[in-house]
């Protein structure tokens, strides 16, 4: 055990055989550890105390509307990409209570229902997911209206990021510069290296909390060769992306394409099911609802994930402002790649590919955007030719 005090930015190595120590140390510090595990033929996020619950030796094969698990030829702990769940289920839960009321002798009493949030350690957060958390931080923590529930949950997490050493079939983080390497927003960032008999993790310390945890886990200083091996793997991932997207001038292009025929075509295919918005790690919309028990004694005010694909979402006094599927799909895509930029100064998409994998109508946003880009290019060529 090396006893030099670790600092932010330090690079160390832990052997695969010592990996369990990391989970144990986090548990000792009263974190509930959550990470990727297999359920119903997919890799989802759930609680774990032992690293053996990780999808060891598994990978995922993703494409338009399809997701399948496949055996790997090695015993990698993190040899897959993102699945149907995202960390927003912990930070921005699907359903949460805002307040409750009870009838009292002289009226009623209101109690805010924000519970003490669980202290969670996220294991295996990918670069795109860190960016998605950063995007939701902007939504919930900036400006005049801070979401107290989100804030409390957000302050209580420890993040163990994992750099991708293999790209997924629907990923395009490289195009958006949101991955595959974690650059900020983590306490520890791991790169898994598995060559022949070597199986270790290069660990980058990202915070003092991270340094404190690593101090208690058996580790060695990283050698230049180990650092280089890890960097080469992440670099190779950039070259393997399943999808690409050209973000240059995209906002302007979309703003000029409100009446593009591609939206009509999408209106034919899209089911309006909202799956894309549910799986998207940046989508943040909710609806609120009051439940009152039959006796009328107690009420609960809750919020739950909503989607711009539902009719009630855009229902205002007198009617619905976005009835055809064409305009609902357009709203979703426009928000991700155009209006989000004006609203928050960044893209609303981090290129995780979930909306492509989990769309039951095989719709791929990168293809749709390309279709609009290409048709516009062609038109410009034509006009150029005429001049």
């Amino acid at each position: 055990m090396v006893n030099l005090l670790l600092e932010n930015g330090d690079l160390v190595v832990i052997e695969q055989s010592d990996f369990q120590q990391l989970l144990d140390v986090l548990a000792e510090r009263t974190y509930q550890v959550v990470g990727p595990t297999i359920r119903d033929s997919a890799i989802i996020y759930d609680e774990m105390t032992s690293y053996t619950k990780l999808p060891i030796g598994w990978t995922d094969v993703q494409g338009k509307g399809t997701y399948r698990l496949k055996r790997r030829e090695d015993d990698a702990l993190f040899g897959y990409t993102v699945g149907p769940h995202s960390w927003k289920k912990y930070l921005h839960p699907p359903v949460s209570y805002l307040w409750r009321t009870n009838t009292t002798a002289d009226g009623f009493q209101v109690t805010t229902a924000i519970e003490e949030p669980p202290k969670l350690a996220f294991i295996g957060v990918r670069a795109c997911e860190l960016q998605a958390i950063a995007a939701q931080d902007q939504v919930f923590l900036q400006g005049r209206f801070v979401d107290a529930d989100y804030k409390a949950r957000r302050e209580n997490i420890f993040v163990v990021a994992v750099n991708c050493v293999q790209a997924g079939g629907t990923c395009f983080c490289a195009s958006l510069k949101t991955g595959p390497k974690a650059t900020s927003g983590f306490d520890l960032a791991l790169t898994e290296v598995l060559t022949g008999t070597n199986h270790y993790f290069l660990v980058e310390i990202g915070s003092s909390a991270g340094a404190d945890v690593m101090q208690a886990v058996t580790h060695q200083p990283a050698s230049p060769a180990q650092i280089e091996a890890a960097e080469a793997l992440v670099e190779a991932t950039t070259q393997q992306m399943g999808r690409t997207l050209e973000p240059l001038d995209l906002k302007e292009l979309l703003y000029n394409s409100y009446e593009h025929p591609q939206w009509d075509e999408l209106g034919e295919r899209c089911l309006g099911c909202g799956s894309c918005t549910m799986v998207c790690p940046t989508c943040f919309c909710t609806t609120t609802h009051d439940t009152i028990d039959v006796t009328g004694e107690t009420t609960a005010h809750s919020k739950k994930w909503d989607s711009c694909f539902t009719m009630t979402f855009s229902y205002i006094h007198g009617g619905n402002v976005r009835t055809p599927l064409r305009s609902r799909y357009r709203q979703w895509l426009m928000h991700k790649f155009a209006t989000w930029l004006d609203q928050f100064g960044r893209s609303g998409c981090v290129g995780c590919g979930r909306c492509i994998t989990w769309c039951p109508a095989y719709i791929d946003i990168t293809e749709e955007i390309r279709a609009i880009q290409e048709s516009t290019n062609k038109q410009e060529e034509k006009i150029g030719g005429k001049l």
Partner: protein
Amino acid sequence: MLPQIKRKPKLAVWKFASCSGCQLSLLDCEDDLLSVAGAVEIANLPEVSRTMAKGPYDISLVEGSITTPAALEHVQEVRHNSKYVVTIGACAMSGGIQALRNFKDVREFTRIVYAQPEYISTLEKSTPISDHIKVDYELAGCPVSKEQLIEVISALITGRTPEIPTSSLCLECKRRGVVCVMSAHGTPCLGPVTRAGCGALCPSYNRGCYGCYGPKERANTASLSKHWSQLGATEEQIVRVFRGCNANAAPFKKESEAHEHH
């Protein structure tokens, strides 16, 4: 609005062509049933008691579809005597599984089934309650969900609008964190065109949704059928899946007819 009523609101349940499963859902409400029983006067519940308090009624829960000339008259009476009419279940909402007769000549069936079909007095088609009277709220499902039943009763008693989603099952499925059976297993699922409300029961048991809550708002059934074909479903299977307990609901009816080869 009901809160002004000083006496307990009167609740009655009416049964038309149905299996009674929906009114049994009310009995299935366990603890909540006691609160309901405390909050309303149950004036008529045929599955429980034959006594029937006289109308008018504040809330009428109507189960079943209209299949006979007698039912046609009776349902008018129910409307006339009720402040709120809430239909419960797929039969009342779209015509039920018995609406399969709508795709054939009903006399053919009565001839096969009954020794003396001339004694059978039945209508050509099985139709939803809303085809005949004004309905205030409709609860989908086969059977209805007890949570929605409690929601609608408590909303009407307290004078607020009940929350009855019309969006897709996929939203409920995803909120629960259920792994999509269509994308991850290749199992055909009707969830993307079906109303939420059941809590994604079938997908949570690794089965595809078979649409018992009926079509969601603006159901794009044509696009979903295309995906089903890509997953290997035959034309016949597509016809059958849309001819379940909501066969007569317009989007499902249209879709099954589009895949039927004459």
